[in-house]
């Protein structure tokens, strides 16, 4: 059985959700690749950015 990583888990989930900002998944993927950030703060910023644009 394939055990998804946390990143895969979230990205698969995002694909199933309706009416999300179009590039959210791509930006989340880029964010999760960066190990050197405060992930929670970066996610908050991302949510603000994609809904404010």
């Amino acid at each position, binding site marked *: *059985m394939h055990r998804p990583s*946390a990143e895969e888990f979230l990205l698969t*989930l995002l694909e199933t959700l309706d009416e*999300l900002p179009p590039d959210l998944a791509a930006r989340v993927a880029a964010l999760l690749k960066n190990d050197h950030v405060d992930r*929670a*703060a970066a*996610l*908050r910023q991302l*949510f603000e950015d994609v809904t404010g644009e």
Partner: protein
Amino acid sequence: MNEKLHRLVMHAFRGIPSEMTVDFGDGESTVVYGDNGTGKSTIADALEWYFTGEIELLSHEGRQHAVRYVGGDADGITSVEVLTSGTLGGKVLFEAERTPDLFEALRRETFLLRGRTLADFVNKTKTEKWKALVDILGLDAIESLREDLQRARNDLRKASKAVEEEVRVYRRALSETGDTVSEATVLANLQQICGMLGVDPPQSLDQVVEPSWITAAVGASAGVSASSDREGLVADINALADPELDKDAFAAWNKLVSSDRARQLARASLVREAKRLLEAQSIEGGRCPICGQKVDQKVLAKKIESALVEMADAARDLERFRDPILEQADVLESADEQRQSIYDRAKELSLEIPPVPAPPDTPIRDQVEATAPVAIDVFTSYLADVRRWDKAAAKLARQISPAKQSTRDSQLVMLAALCQQIKAWQQAEKKNVRARRALALAETVFDAYQQKQKEDLGSLLTQISGRVAKIYSTLHPGEDLDAVSIEPWTAKGVELAINFYGSRQRPPHGVLSESHLNSLAIALFLAMAATFNEKLGFLILDDVINSFDVEHRGRLAELLADGFTDWQLIVLTHDQQFFEHLSRRAPSWRKIEFTSWSHTSGPRTTKYETSGRLAAARERLQSDDVQGAATKGRRALEELLQEVCEALWAPLPFRRGQANDRREIGELFIGLRRALKEHAKSQLPVVEPIVKHLEADVGATLNVAAHASRGRSGASEVKAALDRIDALDALWSCPACRTRVWHKGTPDAARCRCGKSAFPPVVAG
């Protein structure tokens, strides 16, 4: 395709003084039989050490160094070499730096079940079982991302509340009727005021926020700025809201942190800090840097992990009660900031205003951080002081209000202040919309993530449970015990359950015998591997049937032989009946019998290794290790002579116990000659010259002691001796099918598998 084992080579490892090779063919299943103490578990040890970096039993006792052969050469190298069907094989040396990549890749793979730790999982507590599952399923990383999403959501919620409060303040200032204010009403009011003052009314609120409109409408007359500042101050004082204390939230928090569970929480930060330190630096010299006591780093890490799991539930409650308290802290901090700002501005305008009451010495955040109760009385008293200050500020606002002035300038100032407020309100409203959108998105993602996590776990548990139940019922058919499953237990626990004569038992310990619990453990092991293994295609079961009766041993043998044909099973057992049962049931499996073990020569098996030892000798020779080649060559010759003597029923004196395995090489030469005289006299002239040469080799070229005294011996001499051993070996093999000439039959009349070679050999003519 998951990787299978092809070959295992152990050198100076555990009970093996020199080298031992176990050949698994192309990944074939193997049953290994041997009495206790014959060294069969060394196979499991070597594979555990290679694939996990440790032998758990040794690490647990702080005896990791015992992977080395005791009494071996101090300079001797302990190593394990594994050849697999894929890329996971390799060679590792004792104390050499190991790459963590392999261990990380295999951390979640299940491959080894030992009799002595058989029921470990079954006997774990609910939270320990959960932790074990979390490890296997890789849920820790998924849980960590959930926590980050939650933090992002909480931060956005907090930010959104702060902006909402800001909007509420402006709405109050702009409307006399409370929170309800619309753009149309504000615009209408503004247009009316402009009309009264003879100023061009704005057509929209967007126009109001344009600096050019304000300048054109109000002008830049002297004194307007200062008056505008006073007006702004008055407006802000009038907009002050009475901060309220949510006493219920404080009471709930105080009750939680005063409970027994809170004491665990107090330790949580300490344990987390210990984990952080342990991950950041290793314990040097195996001693605790604080108390100096001897401690095993892995044992300590496990204890810390276990303590953290225990605290997980309590931490969740803490999280639930903490958020409302922190929101209260936000409210009070925001109220204090507002009043400080009014105080500072009043002072800049040289107005008399009392100092803002100081917040309590023990801020709410400090109490939350310390998981300590909050003194509600202190904050009630503080808010009473704040209300008194608000009254004093309101009195000041009445005194300085330019409403009493009736000049056009003061009315224009009021208009300018109103426009500034409208601008700030419009900006706050926009900020509020953005904050709510961001929060809505964060909540959508977080809620869906949490829901999917729950559903996936439920589905996984159902999947494993189905497999466990099937395997368990194969081992115990017809018994009124069914519906074995792994079930969730609160947010952070799982438990085993079983139907026992119609009643649900969770956990099943109260109703199952030791052997039933062990069956459950085997079922769990096999189900876990079948469900989750992604890389390893082999499973090792080391003496797991001790508590099984004959009938259940038979059922397990059938299950392993018939139910796991896609897997490479390596079954180690000291039970002859189980070995024979498995051998009959799975005739294609390889069989290895460990016959004895001695300190000097290590484990002995019934499998002869002449060709392997000869190949190793030639490798040594190629790398200029002449003495090593001689040692290997001598062992190859012993192996060959033992095999021939056994096959030809060589008449050797009887010896009690295991001594038959360890005869002097001279005795074996005698045995070979006697056997040939008895069964194949015609072959003696062919064999005798080779044997004579080899007897000489044993005394000189293949004599390690002689090598040591003579210094570096000639490689050509050793090579010639190895060639002679090869020649002797070739006499007993069929050139067509490569099997021995005694493959079938007895020493009086035997033949190879294809029948082209016979013993005694057929004499031409």
